């Protein structure tokens, strides 16, 4: 019984107790290509707890394809923040994101036996992305011209560090940042579905090309043009709306 150093998953075929630690790395392990041992950004690493303390949630044991045991509620708690963000960036109506999350996690629970135990992040994100697609295509998401205004930071009652002006930040800079944020959100909505998903996965969520290809269930050759064209289109939108990119982002070479 050993731990795969690349994926961090327990490779033994025996049923494991939840007490096993299996940090889920975000390295893609695409069949046929060697896993990239590139930089692992710390914020992307998702770690499942050793044991389910059952304080925040009831214990929900599941088993993947190899027989490794997880507490599914622990998995949910590890991925729900990222998943919620992904859903919000994909859907025009943020209120729908909660339904997407609920539906995605229930689907993941039912389909967990099919998880091969390699990349839990890609697996969960794929389920969420597919649910977002279903919502968008079934027109359950509200059309772009919506009577409900997009929630802004000021509308959000929950205080959050990201929304409050930083100590070093002047009010003008804060306002500028807010404007940019809104512009980016609007710009993302203008993108086609697949390009939007590619840009959100790679640039907003920080996935690699290979992981994004896994989530989108396509090849890296398909992901690359989607990313580049999505970025270019967003850049053009920002330029067209006159939203000047903050000078501190400008760099030379």
């Amino acid at each position, binding site marked *: 019984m050993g731990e795969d150093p690349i994926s961090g998953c327990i490779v033994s075929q025996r049923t494991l107790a939840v007490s096993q630690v299996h940090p889920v790395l975000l390295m893609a392990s695409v069949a046929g290509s060697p896993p990239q041992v590139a930089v692992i950004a710390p914020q992307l690493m998702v770690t499942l707890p050793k044991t389910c303390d059952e304080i925040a949630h009831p214990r929900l044991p599941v*088993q993947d394809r190899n027989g490794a045991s997880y507490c599914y509620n622990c998995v949910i708690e590890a991925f729900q923040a990222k998943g919620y963000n992904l859903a*919000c960036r994909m859907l025009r109506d943020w209120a729908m994101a909660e339904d997407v999350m609920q539906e995605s996690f229930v689907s993941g629970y039912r389909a*967990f036996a099919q998880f091969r135990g390699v990349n839990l992040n890609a697996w969960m994100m794929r389920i969420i992305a597919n649910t977002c697609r279903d919502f968008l295509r079934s027109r359950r998401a509200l059309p772009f011209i919506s009577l409900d205004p997009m929630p802004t930071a000021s509308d959000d009652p929950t205080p959050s560090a990201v929304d409050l002006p930083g100590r070093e930040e002047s009010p003008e800079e804060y306002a500028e940042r807010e404007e940019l944020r809104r512009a980016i959100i609007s710009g993302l909505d203008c993108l086609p579905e697949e390009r939007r998903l590619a840009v959100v996965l790679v640039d907003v969520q920080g996935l690699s090309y290979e992981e994004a290809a896994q989530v989108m269930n396509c090849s890296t050759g398909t992901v690359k043009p989607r990313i580049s064209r999505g*970025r270019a289109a967003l850049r053009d939108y920002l330029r067209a709306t006159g939203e000047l990119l903050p000078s501190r982002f400008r760099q030379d*070479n």
Partner: protein
Amino acid sequence: MGIFNKHRHLRPEILSEYLDGRLDHRHQGLVAHRLAECAACREELNTLRATVAALQNLPDLPLPRSFTLPTAPTPDYPAGLIRKPAPPASLVMKLPGWAYGSAASLAGLALALMLSAEAAGLTSPAFLVSTAPATAPATAAPGDAGVAKEAQDEAGVAAKAEPLVAAPERAAQAEAPTDFQSAEAPQTAQRSAAAPTAEAAAKIGESALAENSLAEPASPAPEAALAAPEPQTAMAESQGAVAASDPASEEAVADAVAASDPASEEAAADAAAATASDPAGEEGVADVLSDPPGEDVTAFSLTQSDDRATAPEDSLPSVQAKGTPVAPADSAQSPATEPKAPVENLGIPAQEYSAPSSITWWKALETMFAALTLAFLGGLFYRWRRNRSQSDA
């Protein structure tokens, strides 16, 4: 595609990959060189880089609530949001659904074909020569055209039978197996020549009818007469047996006329028993008694040896109606058939013996197909139930 567009500027895809550091060394060098030369390309790269940075710095949205799944029923989900995960798929579920459906239909089709073949008399040995003229009219009672025809055939046969009965001494002479005789003997056992014989029987029946003017009511008598001599024929492997057949046949005729299927059998048996003084006759009686009631071939079961007795049982039911036409058919086939045809059926036992094994094989095959059909249908039903319960989960 190269890294440059038609204006010899770097393509956005190349710049994007350059930003992510995914270009190979050669292309990276080329891009860096071009960037040093072209301000427009530099501007492109900078704006792209700023866009990516803005995306990366997009603040995360706070989570409105926890999305962990409850295991207990909640007000929104009285039955609980989730149920236990489905158990590992059993072998029955792993096979595709269409396999079960096609297998079940194939097995059912095979079974239907076998049953219809059996019903059509293609497999019953008795259809070749059916002796039971006594029972034949009874079974043909339901009054379809075939039945009437068979009755006519039987009448024709009976016409032939009468002379047979009248001339028992000539029966002894019928040592030489004519077609008619040989056909009559293996009635119970023969499975071969189902259709041709039936057709021949039909023709013969017609010809017999033409020859004779016997009316239908009179058929029972001649049929019984035919039945009587037939059993006698089988029994009469020796002339001695033939001699004994005469009184037995007469009694059998009388009994057969008055009785229904089972009764005729027993009457024939009794008649045979009463008159049979030779071991052959007694064996025949025993055979008759062992046959299930309603069998036309009861009469000609007597004609066979002991081991043959049980054979015809399976094939008889479907043959009852055909037995009679077959018999006259065979008789008519030999123009030189003497009235005393059913005297000897020597040399037939070989054919007769082949019937039981084939009957058993047929029945076993039918049973197997029936079991297969039920099994696959059961598998389909099981899969349907599992899918239903899983979809509810």
